[in-house]
């Protein structure tokens, strides 16, 4: 056999193994499919839907869904379809950035607290618990109303990330606590590896499913917080994010005026995103904890 065909075979069998592996986690696959759908809309949508639709007055107001305006228009003349297509990626962006920051902080706090223990542990864990107890949304409200005015997507993400680090910190910390006493960690310590080295080389690779699950839940928390803020009217005022759309629809009493096409597409989108994220994190939980898997 030539080298080329050997490597091709190897790659095919690896793909086969991945596919076979995925089949064991239907929830993960379903979640990825849903998120994939959302990403598709965000990526492909702009190719078909002109951005002007997002501007105020780009179309006659209060139109029901029709062939011309597929999802209708709102009270100030924005086209809902365009809002969904251009607003969804913004919401995702905020979630991903805030989630990544949250995971980063969570990893830092969680690993240090779990590995080194002692006062550092008490400090980080205590901070996480206090911030969890406090209703984050209200703190965000205080922050956001202070810096009223031009809130950009980036700022929104930064603000929201203040709420996304607590669960990752707790999860990572508890995992590290249980791993700290395992054989290979002790071995690494004895062979002279330093703390940070052990964390990076030994702990992190073994915690990948947990880290992935934490990331997903951080993103989920971030999106939830951001939509909450926006629904109160404290988001980026000029961006058609999903939360702001809901805010405007409430502001213009769309329910009473039966403008159902205004608030239902954002809700549907939000639900798809959350259910997708939820399924992914449940699937990742199954990867990490075999006991949760269904018997094959």
């Amino acid at each position, binding site marked *: 056999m030539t080298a080329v065909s050997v490597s091709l075979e190897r790659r095919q069998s690896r793909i086969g193994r991945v596919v076979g592996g995925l089949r064991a986690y239907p929830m993960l696959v379903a979640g990825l499919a849903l998120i994939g759908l959302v990403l598709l809309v965000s990526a492909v949508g702009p190719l078909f839907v002109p951005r002007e639709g997002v501007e105020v007055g780009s179309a006659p107001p209060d139109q029901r869904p029709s062939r011309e305006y597929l999802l209708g228009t709102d009270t100030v003349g924005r086209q809902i379809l365009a809002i969904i297509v251009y607003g969804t990626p913004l919401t995702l962006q905020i979630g991903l950035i805030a989630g990544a920051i949250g995971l980063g902080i969570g990893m830092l706090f969680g690993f240090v607290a779990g590995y080194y223990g002692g006062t550092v542990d008490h400090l980080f864990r205590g901070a996480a618990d206090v911030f969890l*107890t406090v*209703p984050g949304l209200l*703190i965000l409200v205080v*922050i956001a109303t202070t810096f009223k005015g031009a809130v950009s997507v980036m700022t929104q993400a930064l603000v929201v990330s203040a709420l996304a680090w607590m669960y990752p910190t707790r999860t990572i910390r508890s995992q590290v606590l249980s791993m700290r006493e395992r054989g290979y960690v002790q071995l690494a310590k004895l062979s002279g590896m330093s703390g940070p080295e052990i964390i990076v080389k030994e702990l992190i690779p073994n915690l990948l499913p947990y880290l992935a699950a934490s990331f997903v839940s951080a993103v989920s928390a971030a999106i*939830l917080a951001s*939509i909450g803020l926006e*629904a109160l009217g404290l988001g980026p005022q000029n961006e058609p994010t999903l939360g702001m759309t809901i805010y405007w629809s*409430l502001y213009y009493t769309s329910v009473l005026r039966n403008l159902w096409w205004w608030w239902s597409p954002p809700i549907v989108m939000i*639900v798809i995103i959350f259910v997708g994220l939820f399924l992914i994190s449940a699937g990742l939980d199954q990867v990490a904890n075999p006991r949760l898997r269904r018997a094959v």
Partner: protein
Amino acid sequence: MPLSYLLRRLAVFLIIIWVAATVNFFIPRLSGADPVRERLLQMAAIGGTGTGTVEEVIKTYQAKFGLDKPLWQQYLFYLGDMLRFDFGVSITRFPNSVAGMILDALPWTLVLVTVATLMAFAVGSLFGALVAWPRSPRVVHVLAPPLLTLSAIPYYLLGLVLVYFLAFSWRVFPLGGGYRVGTQPSWSWAFIQEAAYHSVLPALSIILSGIGFWALSMRGMMVTTQGEDYVTFAEAKGLRPRRIFFRYALRNAILPQTTALALALGHVVSGAVLVEIVFGYPGVGNLLYQAIRTFDYPIIYGVTFMVIVAIGLATLILDLLLPVLDPRITYHRT
């Protein structure tokens, strides 16, 4: 209950309150200027017929906070005010005191949130436990996916959907508010009935969304518990499945679940606030919303502080309840 445990828990409670108050004090001032003062000056600048009132507000404000004094002194005055629950007066509805407005709105929120959350917790936990139990009736497994999906929807969005279908399309429930327009709140039975009727939809959005969340959480705990040796031994003892379910599995799984409740309170309250907005329910959430729209800072800070105190109190109660449930928790550990 040993004094040391009680004191330790109280200390945690006070720390949370202190952190909340401090955050409330410093964040607004991070932007360099005092937002309340800015707002007042703004209103004064707008001028017109409201000027006289605004000037009174500014005078009251300055007398209270002594803006010329150094920051640390302002901070101390502020802390003192917080301890006395003196949040100042509302800017937009001068001279109503913020504390008074909060006191009017608080019972609505408290009743709604407490009842709805406890129901969601109880029903959700039981349901989640049944989902995890291999011998539970089929209907549980059939109901599971839709309920779990509901948990992924934020409360207030679910509320929106409920309002549309059950209040607008089918006029089964009122569209919002806490009571019919024009009625005077009172303690009469008729009013309570009316209030309850208006509370059904808001409560339902919290409950439906919450059931899914608690069910999921409980399911996870039950799976872990079922793998424990004492459940295996209970079966080896020849106990009936029902007894094993309630006294061995559920009874142990409810412990981390209660801890989870204590931690989720912040999230629950945040959601409830938003639910009130969707329904125009006369609780602190709506108060906050109106305050945000008009940048009525004293109300914003007052509500934030009060809510944090309420949550801290609830967490304290749960913390003190936990050792009753779990004999392993001795009062001498942190």
